[in-house]
């Protein structure tokens, strides 16, 4: 693992953390605003279906979360389990891809 690669992972984790901080605030504010006076699944879908802006926002949210979680878990695995090297790298890469796929599938389900 080259030094440049390690530093890039670090930068990616900090950058995605910044994206996540913004997305979480928007997400929570939207929820609190939207549920005033009750909310049904039909009402949610009415707003989200065909909403390209919302789809883009949540796609970015999902990808940032997937990248951030993968790099973070890699550090946790190394420091707490002593699990390093190629196998750890593939495991967290798989988990990141899984998170991204599940998340994007959910975005597609409510926005398409």
């Amino acid at each position, binding site marked *: 693992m080259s030094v440049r690669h390690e530093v890039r992972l670090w930068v990616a984790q900090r950058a995605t953390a910044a994206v996540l901080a913004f997305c979480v605030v928007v997400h929570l504010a939207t929820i609190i605003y939207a549920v005033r006076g009750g909310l049904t699944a039909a009402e949610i879908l009415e707003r989200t279906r065909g909403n390209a802006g919302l789809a883009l926002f949540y796609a970015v949210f999902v990808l940032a979360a997937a990248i951030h979680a993968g790099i973070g878990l890699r*550090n946790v695995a190394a420091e707490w389990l002593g699990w390093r090297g190629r196998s750890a790298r593939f495991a967290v890469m798989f988990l990141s891809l899984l998170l991204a796929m599940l998340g994007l599938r959910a975005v597609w389900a409510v926005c398409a």
Partner: protein
Amino acid sequence: MTGALRVRVWRGGEDGHFEAFDVPRRESQTVLDVVTYIQRTLDPSLAYRFACRVGMCGSCAMTVNGKPRWTCRTHVDRVAEGGEVEIAPLRNLPVVRDLVADMREFFDKWARAKGQFAPTRTRADDFAVVKPDSRERREADAGIECIGCGVCYSACDVVAWNRDYLGPAALNRAWTLVNDSRDAGQAERLAAVSGDAGCHSCRTHMSCTEHCPKQISPTRSIAGLKRATMRIALSGEGDER
């Protein structure tokens, strides 16, 4: 001042145990005074390390009531809990015997962090001019008073989790050199302090800053290294390492 202090002192190596001693209380008594009393009066076989006794040499650091401290400048008044003091060797380092920790890995990591000055001038050149109020000079000043006592290294949880981690003192030293305009070893140094063993593993717990007896903030120095190494991330440097 009268009365006795109950002192529990670590004896033996890694698998040793605490041994209790009663030491007379004295005014302005330091933890090092207590250890010295035990060694000179109660048990001459006690091993410990000190030199200057005035907070300059960095050799007397120990774990006092669970916290790493320079014992020569730590008054018993400030650390005794219910008339008791527990004294152990520094954490995160191998124990040689009793209160003596093996400092080799601590100082080897200074070398691995490229803590050596790499000169650019010869004796034929004139003196380098470093403005005292320049940003680099002030950054270097903030970290340069380190006495190498190992307190920060002992306080750092990342060192405990990752044995390769260079630690606060070595990274602080590297940061003072990064800010030395006369130094020629910057690319190598920034590569050496990057990645899993380097500044990017710092979790900003700030235990080093909290415990440093010289009030240095290695956390700040490490943050500086993180900024400086961004250059490596954005360029091709360090690819071969």
